[in-house]
């Protein structure tokens, strides 16, 4: 994009900060299941990216020998780190399955046929197929939580 093109924000004069705008977008009504799913998808995605960044450097100590590796793993074997890992597994499970729903939506699958808009207007954005994938994502995330607790705490 050439420099002469002015951004929309600059042309309008920004009225509120980025953080405030994001917050308003996330929590302003109307709130529905699809918007909530998008919000969780974004938050979990960002969380997983932060985890991935540190995970790459933590696992990088494998090349420094057993002492460095064991020292670091010893530090990470505590309840607080376990809670973090649990969040990663639950977040990844929801993000993955909900991501499949979004992928199918983008490929125009599960959208359904358009219907005549008769009163009372019903929201068509989440069809039966989509809704069932979203519920599957929630159930699987719940199961991942249970499995994670069993594996991490050795129950």
């Amino acid at each position: 994009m050439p420099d002469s093109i002015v951004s929309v924000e600059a042309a309008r004069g920004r009225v509120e900060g980025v953080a405030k705008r994001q917050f308003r977008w996330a929590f302003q009504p109307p709130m529905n299941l699809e918007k909530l799913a998008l919000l969780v998808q974004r938050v979990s995605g960002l969380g997983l990216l932060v985890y991935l960044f540190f995970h790459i450097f933590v696992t990088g100590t494998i090349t420094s020998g057993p002492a460095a590796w064991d020292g670091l793993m010893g530090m990470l074997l505590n309840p607080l780190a376990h809670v973090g890992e649990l969040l990663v597994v639950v977040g990844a499970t929801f993000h993955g399955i909900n991501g499949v729903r979004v992928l199918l939506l983008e490929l125009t699958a599960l959208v359904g046929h358009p219907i005549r808009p008769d009163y009372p207007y019903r929201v068509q954005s989440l069809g039966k197929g989509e809704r069932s994938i979203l519920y599957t994502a929630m159930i699987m995330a719940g199961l991942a939580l249970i499995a994670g607790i069993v594996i991490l705490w050795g129950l």
Partner: protein
Amino acid sequence: MRESTLQLVNYVMVLALLVTLALHLAMQAFLGVSGYEGALSYSTALARYREPLSASLLAILLVAATYHGLFGLRNILLEMRSGPRWDRFVTGTVLGLAVVMLGWGLRTIVVAFGGA
């Protein structure tokens, strides 16, 4: 690169990620390991890097996760603001992170595979 090409590559990475991440988590949790602490032992972890198949799995996972994660971050950042300066900043940030993450991750895989 065209946005549609980036998105197509993202779809491929997503599919690779679904398979490799599921395998990666299963290998850490219950495939061929005895307990979570056993999965984190130096010998078990090193064996994963030494075995060609699981080392390839790690490499694919690294590339797919880094691409998908940074592509998502780029989308979020580009939705927040617009303009050529912001575009350049986002592209620079994302490419910088990609170089650091892929560089360090692939270095680990190559060095550990070759014999740490």
